[in-house]
């Protein structure tokens, strides 16, 4: 088992990786502003994530405030300001952003490891613990959160049976 994510990555690195992804995919000059303060506020909106399997097992989750998803999709797809993206486009954009974030985060973790296919839906997250690295950010005033969390372990199996 690998060290917890907090021993492998820090929030500053995650924010820097996300900034590069933003600039390349969302648009040159599109700034992802790091959140202020040590505790990231909860972001109310859809999530997309990828799993990382290897010495460190877990998920990389991108959550975008509900107000920002259409704006984000328009930027990535270079749609007109008054064009309403389809739900499928919004999902696809979030999945791809999570995929690229996950791939870049994976490259910073001990390997070899594999990336899963991106998914969307309710984020598969548990309460934060030492195997959780969470950063908040803001883009055009919309809240975003990136959470990197280790897979929870199965509870230890205790028995009083005497081994034969």
């Amino acid at each position, binding site marked *: 088992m690998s060290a917890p994510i907090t021993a492998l990555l820090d929030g500053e690195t995650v924010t820097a990786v996300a900034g*590069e*992804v933003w*600039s*390349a*995919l969302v648009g040159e000059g599109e700034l992802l502003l790091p959140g202020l303060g040590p505790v990231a506020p909860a972001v109310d909106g859809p999530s997309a994530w990828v799993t990382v399997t290897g010495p460190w097992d877990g998920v990389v989750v991108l959550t975008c405030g509900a107000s920002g998803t259409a704006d984000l999709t328009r930027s*990535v*797809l*270079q749609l007109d300001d008054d064009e309403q993206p389809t739900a499928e*486009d919004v999902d*696809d*954009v979030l*999945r*791809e952003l999570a*995929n*690229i974030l*996950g*791939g*870049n985060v*994976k*490259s910073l973790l001990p*390997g*070899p490891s594999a*990336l*899963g*296919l*991106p998914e969307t839906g309710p984020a598969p997250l548990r309460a934060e613990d030492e195997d959780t690295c969470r950063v908040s950010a803001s883009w055009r005033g919309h809240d975003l959160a990136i959470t990197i969390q280790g897979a929870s372990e199965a509870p230890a199996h205790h028995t009083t049976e005497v081994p034969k």
Partner: protein
Amino acid sequence: MKILVADDSRVMRQIVVRTLRQAGYDDVDVVEAEDGADCLAKVGSESPDLVLSDWNMPNMTGIECLRALRAQGSAVPFGFVTSEGSPEMRETASDAGALFLIAKPFTPDTFRDALDAVLA
């Protein structure tokens, strides 16, 4: 000149095509495939001059597609455009016969650096 772009994400296919245009490849024909199996079939039916493929895809991954192509005797130039670019993946890609691996996020310059030699 024809390029086959394989990615299960329609958004990413669109971004790859847009980046190709921004990199100056305005006059290439682009054909799209939505996974590795579709890519394998379209190499046969479309005879592209270059394949740009994602790595992680449902049905058949990009590396499985490349190995299947080489096993069939196809020598189509093949490059990866993928969200991860670890040294192990680059080695695996090269061993299977890929010409290059472009890691996302990328820029038009990244495309020019990798593609100019292939499309010259």
